[in-house]
């Protein structure tokens, strides 16, 4: 204690300014994204009467939450300079498996959820391991995972009616509130992981410069496998919450989720090229995307046009990322 005291005493003039600096620094990093969110929200607020209700705001959060849970994993993987296109399919496999565990095997929900999360983690770790061992680029390995895991989910689900789950399980998907709380808890833990643990903080170094990380004694390959594992685990958790919410599981769920997650992460300001970003940004990015989707549908714009809008925004966000990199 006395040591801590003396340290703060020594650096106290610097450190109070330091804390302010950190706040200011963090704000400078996200203010553009916050401003974009405010602008977009304001736009729809003006354009659409029903959009103005508090319920709409809640439903934006609620609908964002499942994708946001998955996107927390995507954030970790992208910061480390990796890419996982298969998380949407991992989502499908875990959803179907958890459904089978409960609807067919009659496993208690706690066990089904635990096994489901383990399944997600294992599939993610498999992606990472294949990359590390074969040196095949992440894009290719996880593109393979995208179709292979999707096939696996279809095989597992074929001819099965996976619905009507126990009440205690359905609790996980109650209204907008429970998924939202899970989302915030996951985001908080992911943030802690990225900033306060050795493994997590090294993701920034690995994503920034893998060779430097290696020369500094960071076990790069092993760390990467863990990042993909966490990505898979969180895809699994997102699937579990969705299955609980819908009260059924089917292999078509999760389609394109990996792309929406990457979009949200990049819109929030995490670099697609690794080394920079954070989970708070991902939540902001997810809210921006969801606000646009909800806002456009309130204005009567169809899903196909919404997709076009999201696609355009992704390109703008990545362009911005590229531009920022080139100017420093």
């Amino acid at each position, binding site marked *: 204690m006395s040591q801590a005291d003396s340290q703060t005493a020594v650096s106290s003039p610097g450190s109070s300014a330091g804390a302010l600096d950190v706040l200011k620094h963090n704000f400078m990093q996200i203010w553009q994204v916050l401003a974009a969110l405010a602008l977009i929200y304001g736009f729809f607020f003006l354009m659409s009467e029903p959009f103005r209700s508090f319920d709409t705001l809640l439903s934006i959060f609620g609908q964002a939450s499942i994708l946001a849970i998955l996107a927390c994993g995507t954030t970790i993987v992208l910061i480390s300079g990796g890419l996982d296109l298969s998380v949407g399919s991992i989502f499908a496999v875990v959803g179907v498996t958890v459904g089978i565990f409960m609807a067919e095997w009659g496993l208690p929900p706690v066990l089904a959820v635990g096994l489901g999360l383990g399944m997600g983690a294992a599939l993610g770790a498999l992606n990472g391991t294949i990359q590390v061992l074969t040196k095949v680029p992440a894009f290719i390995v996880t593109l393979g995972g995208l179709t292979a895991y999707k096939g696996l989910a279809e095989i597992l689900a074929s001819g099965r009616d996976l619905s009507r789950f126990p009440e205690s399980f359905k609790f996980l998907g109650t209204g907008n509130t429970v998924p939202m709380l899970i989302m915030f808890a996951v985001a908080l833990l992911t943030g802690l992981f990225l900033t306060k643990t*050795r493994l997590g903080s090294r993701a920034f*170094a690995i*994503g920034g*410069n893998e060779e430097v990380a*290696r020369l500094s004694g960071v076990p790069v390959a092993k760390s990467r496998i863990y990042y993909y594992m966490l990505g898979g685990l969180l895809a699994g958790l997102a699937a579990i919450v969705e299955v609980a919410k819908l009260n059924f599981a089917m292999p078509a769920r999760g389609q394109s989720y990996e792309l929406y997650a990457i979009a949200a992460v990049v819109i929030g300001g995490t670099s697609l090229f690794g080394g920079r970003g954070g989970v708070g940004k991902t939540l902001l990015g997810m809210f921006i995307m969801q606000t646009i989707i909800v806002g456009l549908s309130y204005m009567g714009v169809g899903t196909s046009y919404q997709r076009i809008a999201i696609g355009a925004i992704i390109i703008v966000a990545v362009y911005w990322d590229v531009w920022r990199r080139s100017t420093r």
Partner: protein
Amino acid sequence: MAPLVEMKNISIAFGGVQAVDDVSISLEAGEVVGLLGHNGAGKSTLIKILSGAYKMDSGEIWIDGQKAQITSPRDARDYNIETIYQTLALADNLDAASNLFLGRELTTPLGFVDDDRMEAETRKIMARLNPNFKKLKEPVSALSGGQRQSVAIARAVYFNAKILIMDEPTAALGVHETAMVADLIQELKKQGLGIFLISHDTREMMELCDRVAVMKNGRMIGAERVEDVTEDDILSMIILGKNPKVAA
């Protein structure tokens, strides 16, 4: 007593290029050994084998009279070998403290990364190495060449190295900072470290080193005590690839 480091008959090739060809060199505790030679002579490659960055094709490394297995930077670290790479090997997107402690992050008793303590330690060592260094919170990409250099030096000095490798540590430095590095080398030498120093400045090397070794085209031309040779002898070794001491 066995030397601190003995590299015996080290060879490594990249594709068709024999970058290091049957090179042997030793280093004592408290000794500074300089490596000289033209661009592409194989100096960096040789020391990267000792630092675990490259795996040699053949040869042996002995440390304190024991045969050492160095196949990764982590192995080298376990032998208390610290390296300042020619390229500095810093992660541009991280600040000075994160670079200093990368791979060896300080943690709280609960195992969480202790940013405050790492920053305080960084402040302390930077105050000693480069009192003008103020930009602790910025990514090192925002630093000048000299400031980056001092982060890299701090990184090697902080962890109580026994064997220190410095690959052109003063290349990006001004006169004043170069003198500071020279002082630091003397101080570390007094503490009993063995230091491999690479530089192109022959005069500087004659002043700082106990012995100088000259490489050319991947081969070791010779290693001589500085009091036994003149600057001209060294230059002719570098240029002609012959050791006048042996020829005479």
